[in-house]
């Protein structure tokens, strides 16, 4: 039987439907799992994404991008392929893409996580013959802090800083992680501030009906004086910008899956590291793969070689595929 999906220099390709999934080179037809920049790239002829992903893509790729939308679970016929999108639990609107050709089902999962983050649509295991998985955190050293413990840690940290008259700056990825933290904390502790990249994403998400707590954008006149004891949600790159000086003595933290490693925490030079990721941890990856019932597994990015070997030892027909996905948290760690 011919492969439902193949791996090309431009991305994951479906010959029966003549379309690509998350391609990294310009192609006529692109199906997109989610809005992160390593998966939703510019210059595609046409895009197809979920209703929850399209607004962020439109904002990031510009008004010229031609994006068609689809609901979760809605079946579409493209050429000889039957296609549907299913929640991946990674960020709001993120999807696994199910492709069926002559009864053979393959699923490209993009990025995913299996735990409920209180924000994204919950991951849905899709039965399939072949499953394409990431492995950003595909080592047994990665185990995430449960969401309620994380919330408690964040609140305690923020509260202690606020009581000491300090602002709390936490670095997190602008789409997904930032909003997840906002929803997890107790908004009663103090004001919440955001840097531009985060607030712009907030606006897009609020407009599509995602419920987020009240936040204020950091403008020239926002400082430790105007917003005492604030929690500031910043992108990893923005914590060296000028606005930081208006919050002297602020406590700093970074929220990422890499924070589970001591060496990474130390090199970051922040006061605190919160272990939180929008990717699956070791147990999550293994549980998700098992739940699909797939026998053939393709590993796209992360600790690919190691994870493939482990899967092969567990009896899967596992392969490494080289792609240009970087994993958002991988960027965060650089």
């Amino acid at each position: 039987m011919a492969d439902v999906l193949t791996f090309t220099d431009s991305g994951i390709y479906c010959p029966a439907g003549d379309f690509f999934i998350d391609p990294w080179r310009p192609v006529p037809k692109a199906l997109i799992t989610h809005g992160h920049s390593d998966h939703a790239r510019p210059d595609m002829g046409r895009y197809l994404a979920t209703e929850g992903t399209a607004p962020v893509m439109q904002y990031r790729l510009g008004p010229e991008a031609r994006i068609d939308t689809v609901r979760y679970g809605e079946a579409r016929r493209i050429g000889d392929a039957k296609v549907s999108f299913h929640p991946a639990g990674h960020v709001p609107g993120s999807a696994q893409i199910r492709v069926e050709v002559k009864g053979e089902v393959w699923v490209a999962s993009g990025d995913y996580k299996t735990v409920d983050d209180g924000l994204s649509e919950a991951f849905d295991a899709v039965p399939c013959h072949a499953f394409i998985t990431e492995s950003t955190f595909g080592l047994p050293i990665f185990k995430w802090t449960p969401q309620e413990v994380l919330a408690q840690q964040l609140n305690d940290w923020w509260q202690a800083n606020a009581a000491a008259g300090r602002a709390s700056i936490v670095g997190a990825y602008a789409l997904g992680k930032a909003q997840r933290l906002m929803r997890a904390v107790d908004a009663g502790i103090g004001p919440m501030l955001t840097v531009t990249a985060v607030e712009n994403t907030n606006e897009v998400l609020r407009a599509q009906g995602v419920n987020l707590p009240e936040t204020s954008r950091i403008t020239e006149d926002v400082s430790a004086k105007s917003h005492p004891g604030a929690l500031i949600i910043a992108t990893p790159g923005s914590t060296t910008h000028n606005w930081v000086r208006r919050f002297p003595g602020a406590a700093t933290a970074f929220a990422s899956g890499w924070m589970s490693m001591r060496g990474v925490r130390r090199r970051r030079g922040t006061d605190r590291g919160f272990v939180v990721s929008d990717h699956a941890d070791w147990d999550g990856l293994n549980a998700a793969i098992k739940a699909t019932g797939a026998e053939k597994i393709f590993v796209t990015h992360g600790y690919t070689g190691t994870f493939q070997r482990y899967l092969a030892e567990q009896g899967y027909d596992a392969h490494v595929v080289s792609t240009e996905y970087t994993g958002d948290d991988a960027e965060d760690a650089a």
Partner: protein
Amino acid sequence: MKQFATLFARIDETTKTRVKVDALASYLSAAPPEDRVWMIALFTGRRPKRAVTATRLREWAAEVAGLPDWLFEESYHVVGDLAETISLVLPDPTHEVDHSLTHWITTIKALAGVEENQRKAAVIAAWDSLVPDQRFLFNKLLTGGFRMGVSAKLMTRALAISTGQDEATLTHKLMGSWSPETTTWEHLIETEDPTADLSRPYPFYLAHPVDVPDDLGAPSDWHAERKWDGIRGQFIHRGGAHYIWSRGEEVMTDRFPELAQLADFLPDGTVIDGELLAFADEAPLGFNALQKRIGLKKVPAKALRDSPVIFMAYDLLEHAGADIRQTAFAERRALLIDMLRDVPAQIPIRLSQEVAFKTWDDLAKVRSLSRDHNVEGLMIKRKDSPYLAGRKRGDWWKWKVDPLTIDAVMIYAQSGHGRRANLFTDYTFAVWNGEELTPFTKAYSGLTDAEFREVTAWVRKNTLQKFGPVRQVKPHHVFEIAFEGIQPSSRHKSGVALRFPRMLRWRKDKPVDEANTLDDLNEMLKLYG
């Protein structure tokens, strides 16, 4: 252990001195007294000995976590720390308990006396009752590798804050050969008796590096001598006994039995600051010879013959039982010269000779000959300076000789640990041997993050072969490698081993065929080995 884990996390995750000192001071106020003493002990290098081998721990952890050995090893490679890897891969504890730090250290010490299967059961039971951050600390204590990013000085400052005593007094109290099993908080910290421990050395005064001494002012205000390449130490003769302390605050008395006779010629109530050197025919044998002695706790006669050790005296800190550190250096030195004048030549102590100079240029000429004398450069001390504690700027300077360098070709690259697991940061370098490239050293520091990224991108595109995590790359890039010393080595294909090799710069300007040769290395070995 929870309190201690919180302390560790607060210290470990910040670079701010204020935060570290606050965390230590609050621990010293809140923890039970016996835990405080253990904390001080751990921070001053008084760690419990390794109780279980690393090999066993790996096996047990992989077994408990249900992982194949190779996967445990790959995880270890990424994390870069065994204690941490174990703490991360194990399943969550089934029954958390919060025992004191002292409880866990006592548990660990008791492991030494039991059968291996009991030891294994005890370790696994401990793992099962500790959450990962506490488990990590337990593992560190277990493997004898406990270290924290805090100097003894910072700890002393925190102790000063929490007890109200001054730092210098506390520093002195913490020196000497105490252990938490032989002392109490009351005795160690609260009691006012600085002479209680006769073995106690003075805190060492450390020099700052200087690049050009011209700014130091009039040469006549300064005294110069050679910077000997051995182990800094103090020789103490008090109460009829003698002690030798290293700068690392370790008692080394028994490792250098030949120095016992010094006590017969130096009066009681004497403390001399100096350098332990392997030395024969009035010349140093080099650090390599001394290194052979450091590891030996029992010293065989052959080692005493082949690598005899002397004490090269720099300074007199205690004279006739009195602390004279506040006296001017020139006066202390005069007393030292007096004391050593009549010591016979067969006794293994020497006065570090003064290097006379009129101008800084004179001194620069002497410095340039340092390698010929097997010394690291020069020490420059202000004649009227007191003997201070720690690394204080202004009075003592070290003017080191430039490192040796060689241009070498990168032939293998390996990924780093942790965040650097995605970057190639560990390289193997080679020199030309005819048409062939002979590897001679590895180096993994000295480049900027941007350079590491650039090399990584290049390695990905120019890999010839993969051997596990190691990649053989096209011989193309030349790096200037700096190192402090060179010695013959039968374990290396090149026949040489370098001391402290690191990348000085990436020689993008240099074509690969202009890198140095094995003959060049052998020439260096002849000159400086």
